[in-house]
């Protein structure tokens, strides 16, 4: 697959998990990938090295997307690297902490909204001058936005906000030829969902899925790569559930 040759892509939160797999998939398809990380510089650099070793193009950029100006700073760095055109923006960086209604703190609530909602919003805003006809934006939703799974009411609300943003962004940016979609992973075997690595977590997960295996980061990355590609040129405003048929 080399359908993204000469395209530029930014993947936030790309040092680990779904973001890392996505950056790898986009690079394998020929895109030049900006690998954003929050704090895991070493993991991001190792991914860049892997991509380059395989003949691909990648650069790592750090930015704190929890800070009010984090998206602005990242956009400025991206602009320095790619110039005037960004073909694919994957706003993947996200954080999740489980907490009951009683135990939810204001600080953690605000931090999740800052990273999961505010940062994608302002990243799109700040990168708009680089996005144009044929550009594709992919946001990360979650199964939790659609169904009560786990003890995640505040996290789920951030992802509900993403589902809403997808529709408004797609409608507002459609006339400029920019597509905006989301993928909504179910339980995926990453650090964020490591409860699925316990037997109890595994049984819980399989109990709500049609397909009887735990999802991998690659399962989601392949769908994001599709949404970024020309094959999805008529797909916009959609949230695609990638959860092995969870809660259907």
């Amino acid at each position: 697959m080399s359908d993204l040759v000469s395209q530029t892509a930014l993947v936030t939160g790309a040092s680990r998990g779904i973001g890392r797999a996505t950056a790898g998939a986009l690079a394998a398809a020929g895109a030049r990938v900006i690998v954003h990380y929050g704090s895991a510089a070493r993991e991001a650099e190792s991914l860049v090295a892997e991509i380059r070793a395989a003949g691909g193009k990648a650069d790592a950029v750090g930015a704190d997307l929890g800070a009010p100006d984090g998206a602005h700073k990242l956009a400025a760095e991206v602009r320095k690297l790619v110039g005037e055109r960004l073909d694919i923006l994957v706003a993947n960086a996200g954080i999740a902490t489980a907490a009951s209604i009683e135990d939810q703190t204001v600080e953690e609530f605000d931090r999740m909204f800052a990273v999961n909602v505010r940062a994608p919003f302002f990243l799109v805003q700040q990168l708009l001058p680089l996005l144009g006809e044929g550009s594709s934006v992919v946001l990360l939703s979650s199964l939790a936005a659609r169904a009560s799974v786990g003890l995640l009411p505040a996290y789920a609300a951030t992802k509900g906000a993403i589902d809403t943003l997808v529709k408004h962004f797609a409608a507002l940016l459609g006339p400029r030829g920019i597509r905006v979609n989301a993928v909504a992973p179910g339980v995926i075997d990453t650090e964020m969902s490591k409860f699925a690595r316990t037997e109890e977590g595994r049984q819980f997960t399989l109990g709500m899925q049609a397909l009887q295996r735990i999802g991998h980061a690659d399962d989601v990355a392949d769908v994001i790569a599709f949404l970024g590609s020309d094959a999805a040129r008529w797909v916009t405003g959609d949230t695609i559930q990638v959860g092995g048929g969870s809660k259907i």
Partner: protein
Amino acid sequence: MSHPVVLITGALAGIGRATALAFAKEGARLVVSGRRDDAGEKLVAELRGLGTEAEFIRADVRHEADVQNLVDKTVARFGRLDVAVNNAGTEGKPGPVTEQTAESYAATFDTNVLGVILSMKHELRTMQAQGSGSIVNLSSTMGHRGAPGASIYTASKHAVEGLTKAAALEAAAFGVRVNAVAPGPVETEMLTRFTGSADRKAGLVAGIPLKRAGRPEEIADAIVFASSDKASFISGQIIAVNGGKTAS
């Protein structure tokens, strides 16, 4: 999978035909089906001209004997069935609810709903025996939204989405995925018949964020994706391919 065996119903025009050509480009072996022998043989000649192994098998999906013969002959010819695209559909007779009859209901539901049930019945029997396969049904924006003057078509496509989810849950047990692709307005003969006038067609297109009607090839690309291993963790889902119509 290299050279998957793909069966497409309603393959002689519009989205079905574009889907056959898209799968041909992917190296698939094809069975195209429809009700017109001359158009079928013409399409097969075109596909073979592209170097594709292809057969036309006449079938009217409203009749179980036809559907069973279609699946049986596919397996007899190619030895297996990897992908089925249940695309055969009709817009029926558009008109207000107050004018509908048992006949107008049957004219739409026999193809759009019974046809999908009968098709999945025989496709899934084959895929169950294989322990693998992927089905893509064709829904519509009207599979999850209403439209005046199209009550029966709307109801029939809502039924397709329900069938897709239930079948996905059953088929997961034997390693088969079932999804639907839901196009918005697409430049086909059906759209011209459906809208009835250039003004009505222009009005429909004005509501699409990407500001044009879709092309059959664009729906075909999404169908190919949904059927492929790239979508291996997607099942029971309805993928909207509509230029953002349902986002606005």
